[in-house]
């Protein structure tokens, strides 16, 4: 925890040091080929949840969890000799979480190492925009590591604007190659997997393709339609999730080794008058585990003045249960696949809260490069006895 705090403080200090150097004035008609600092974003969040359907304990027990998440990204740009704009984005994120249910992987101990962990996830992205042709191509790499999970991913993307620059088509493909450590509940460990730190691993792969179309309708309204297809294969459950059968025997969650997800989303943003922005988003989702879901989110940004805004928001989510879900002591030996993870059960959720954003022309607190500050709080509630609160802070330096 101390290490994470020191890392974040270190990042912040290096950022301040970077701003102590003033950049020379540049002629606006000349596009410098030198690498130029564009912006830095720092996002910090504190998330806390509670509930009584932990998957680790077979759909019963405390779901208490806290997560402190920090990320920083740096964006740089330069123009090449063909006047194409290259953007480079470097990001690193660090999460530290504590979980009451993870502590029950080995319930004999008072508190085990699994009750807390940190996750570090760096990423790099590059895009090249040809402003004349209206095309952009890009690629990115992503990695993530925590005690029982490692991930490595990549993406490539392409977008093309219409002739009048009012519409844009985008395509993106992504792949994640993950390794899951097989840490079973202590009472289900046998011979080879009894060691404390020498766990076997298994793979989980995710491949996705996204197509989107965004369109400016008029001076106040723009919309976007986005469709995605995601295919996952490998070990798709979690090895420490218990399932209690009707005969009271305990088993490790078993899920199919593939999953096909097909979400489709529609977004519309409308600037009403001079002070109100309405942001609406709808998603329909379906997968081959038989989960069907509808999500709708509405946000209204009220501009108190051109530089200050208040954003109340509301999100409604509804899903049907996966074919393989049943509560505590309902599954039987006749079932091929079984889970008591309530994230795969039938439920509705409501998420609401408010955000505050300030971006004064002279900089936040009159600090020239401190471009914007945003704070957002949200309360999330499922109708299956789970709720959480999240508070986030976004600082933008430009």
């Amino acid at each position, binding site marked *: 925890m101390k290490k994470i705090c020191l890392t974040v403080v270190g990042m912040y200090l290096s950022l301040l040091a970077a701003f102590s150097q003033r950049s020379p004035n540049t002629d606006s008609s000349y596009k410098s080929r030198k690498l130029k600092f564009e912006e830095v974003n720092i*996002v910090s969040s504190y998330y806390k*949840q509670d509930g009584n359907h932990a998957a*680790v304990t077979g759909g019963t027990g405390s779901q208490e969890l806290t997560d402190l*998440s920090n990320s920083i990204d740096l964006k740089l740009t330069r123009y090449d000799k063909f006047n194409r704009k290259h953007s480079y984005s470097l990001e690193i994120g660090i999460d530290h979480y504590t979980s009451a*249910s993870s502590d029950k992987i080995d319930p004999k101990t008072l508190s085990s190492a699994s009750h807390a962990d940190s*996750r570090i*996830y760096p990423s790099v992205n590059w895009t090249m925009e040809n402003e004349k042709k209206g095309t952009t191509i890009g690629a990115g790499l*992503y990695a*993530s590591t925590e005690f029982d*999970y490692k991930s490595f*991913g990549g993406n490539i993307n392409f977008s093309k604007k219409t002739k*009048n*620059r*009012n519409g844009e088509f985008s395509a993106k493909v*992504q792949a*994640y190659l993950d390794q899951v450590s097989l840490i079973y509940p202590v009472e289900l460990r046998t011979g080879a997997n009894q060691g404390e730190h020498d766990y076997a691993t298994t793979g*989980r*792969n*995710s491949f*996705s393709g*996204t197509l989107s179309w965004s*369109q*400016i*309708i*008029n*001076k106040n309204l*723009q*919309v976007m339609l986005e469709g*995605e297809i*995601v295919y*996952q294969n490998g070990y798709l459950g*979690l090895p420490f999730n218990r399932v209690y059968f009707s005969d009271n025997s305990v088993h490790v969650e078993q899920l199919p080794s593939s*999953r096909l*997800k097909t*979400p489709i*989303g529609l*977004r519309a*943003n409308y*600037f009403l008058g001079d002070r109100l922005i309405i*942001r609406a*988003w709808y*998603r329909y*989702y379906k997968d081959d*585990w038989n*989960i069907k*879901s509808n999500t709708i989110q509405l946000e209204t*940004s009220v501009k108190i003045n051109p530089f200050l805004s208040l954003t109340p928001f509301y999100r409604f989510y509804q*899903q049907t249960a*996966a074919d393989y879900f049943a509560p505590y002591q309902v599954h039987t030996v006749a079932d091929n696949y079984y889970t008591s993870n309530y*994230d795969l059960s039938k439920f509705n*959720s409501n*998420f609401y809260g408010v955000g505050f*954003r300030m*971006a004064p022309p002279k900089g936040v607190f009159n600090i020239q490069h401190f471009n914007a500050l945003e704070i*957002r709080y949200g309360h*999330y509630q499922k109708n299956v006895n789970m709720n*959480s609160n*999240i508070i*986030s802070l*976004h600082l933008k330096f430009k």
Partner: protein
Amino acid sequence: MKLIQNKGKIFFCVLLLSAAVSIFSSCTTVKEYQKNKLNDAEMTLSARKIEKTELNFQSYREGASGANGGKTGGGCGCN
């Protein structure tokens, strides 16, 4: 019952299609100098940076994910 459900789905699709047609047919070309409202930081057609952790926890706590510019699987074995 199934017939009523299917009729409902067809009606919903027709409604969505006609809404899409009427929206796209009302498109007017907006010049760069007329885009000051569309270029507002809060008019962006993607999830904003401050929503990053929200999107993460929603993708772990819910069965559905995707079509919002975020990740749709992979990258974390969060519980």
